[in-house]
């Protein structure tokens, strides 16, 4: 059954977001930031560090309501339909991996069968461990498991692979792709890593330095399994041609 509002895109139209620093200085983080992510599409918000990507995500997650503008979330008003993977795993240290995942589920789904998800993410043997017993890479996987277990209508990821060594990050990107492909969800990921964006996304939304607004879109229409190193080089080159100086 299609969830209510499933065909709706993620539509963002933020007119302005300003911060007041401790000294009372106004800093404009976002200005005229508008974009759309189609249903079932994996999009990346790509921009230089500190341009306001995380701020955008916090607004969309409803954690920051102090801004001018509007946005529309697919599946809004349809119960628990938004999931997020934060920059840090943010697992509850006093609950086991499995409890952490189940607690994020709506009451009706609490007893869902999670065996396949845990297996795909290589967490089958870690379900009873506490987060302090996990490496950062494993904790990130548990955070992914929590997000996907909720079967969200839209998924937000905030640089979920930073501060990992490249090998671990690459393995996690593949894991992310395999769980995402099993149930393609409208997804918006924030990153400043162009390679990561080219590897994962259908569309890259390129942001300017602060105050952030959309510079342009870069669509990657190739199926992901065809994005081998050779193709990635070509994609990188054409990206740099289209957006010289970006990132």
């Amino acid at each position, binding site marked *: 059954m299609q969830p209510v509002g499933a065909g709706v895109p993620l539509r963002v139209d933020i007119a302005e977001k300003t911060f007041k620093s401790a000294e009372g200085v106004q800093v404009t983080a976002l200005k005229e930031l508008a974009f759309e992510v189609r249903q079932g599409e994996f999009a990346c918000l790509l921009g230089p560090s500190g341009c306001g990507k995380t701020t955008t995500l916090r607004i969309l*997650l*409803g*954690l920051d309501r102090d801004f001018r503008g509007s946005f529309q979330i697919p599946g809004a008003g349809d*119960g*628990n339909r*938004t*999931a*997020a993977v*934060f920059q*840090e795993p*943010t697992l*509850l*240290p*006093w*609950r086991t991996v499995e409890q952490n995942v189940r*607690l*994020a589920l*709506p*009451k009706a789904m609490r007893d869902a069968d999670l065996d396949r998800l845990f297996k795909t993410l290589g967490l089958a043997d870690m379900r009873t461990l*506490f*987060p*302090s*017993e996990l490496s950062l890479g494993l904790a990130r996987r548990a955070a992914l498991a*929590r997000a996907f277990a*909720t079967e969200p209508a839209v998924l937000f990821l905030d640089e979920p692979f930073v501060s990992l060594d490249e090998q671990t990050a690459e393995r996690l990107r593949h894991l992310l792709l395999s769980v995402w492909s099993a149930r393609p969800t409208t997804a918006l990921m924030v990153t400043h890593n162009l390679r990561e964006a080219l590897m994962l996304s259908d569309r890259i939304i390129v942001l300017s330095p602060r105050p952030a607004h959309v510079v342009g879109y870069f669509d990657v229409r190739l199926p992901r399994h065809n994005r081998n190193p050779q193709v990635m080089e070509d994609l990188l080159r054409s990206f740099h041609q289209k957006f010289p100086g970006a990132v």
Partner: protein
Amino acid sequence: MNEQGDAETAGRLRSGLGPALPAVTVILSLAGLLAVWSLVAAIWPSRAFPPPGAVWQELLEDTASGELPYHLGVTLARVAASFVVAMVFGSAIGILLGSYRRADSFFNPWVVLFLNLPALVIIVLAYIWFGLNEAAAIGAVAVNKIPNVVVTMREGARAFDPRYAEMAAVYRFSPIDRLRHIVLPQLQPYFAAASRTGIALIWKIVLVVELLGRSNGVGFQIYLYFQLFDVAAILAYTLAFVAVMLVIELLLVQPFERHATRWRRRPA
């Protein structure tokens, strides 16, 4: 390597004796105290300073007559009631003050005032205002303790990690789940600290409350034996009560804390 071998042996020795060593030390230390006590009582025999044997005799007699268990039970019930009241109200107020800065800056002088009110004043006023009854007694003890709980729990509420609250907001945790899985676990160390100091303070104040306005309990009995100048009985009641509080600490408080902090331990 020799060095490594030595280190290993030392490690094994330590791990072999490790659990027993503190217990042995405690027993030796208490035996030493008992020996000093007997010695001093033997050198200066006096009705005001009975030897351990006389206190033990008194303890056995009062236990057999049922008098000591009765008064001990009454006092323990008062300790438990005051503890629960103090923890519930103190935690609620402390969390509120820790969460709302404005309320805190307004009510902080009140907290400081109550922190510095002498226990005796609160007890006397409670008896005058509310009469010589059980509610006044328990309330007076709780009011003595509440400011300490408030201060500790306020610190705990200020230390909340906003990331957990945000995670809970994104995943739409219910209010009950938030309390159980986000708020209480973060407060647990502060709660443990407040209850530890709480029990120690409360049982001392309960004795004063009983002395001033109750007709049963350990405090009342001590006052009675004070008038009879019966030091052996006073010591018997004191030691019995201290022993019970230690057992509560060992069998209730510590296992609970170990359970609540099990997630902190890492595998070897």
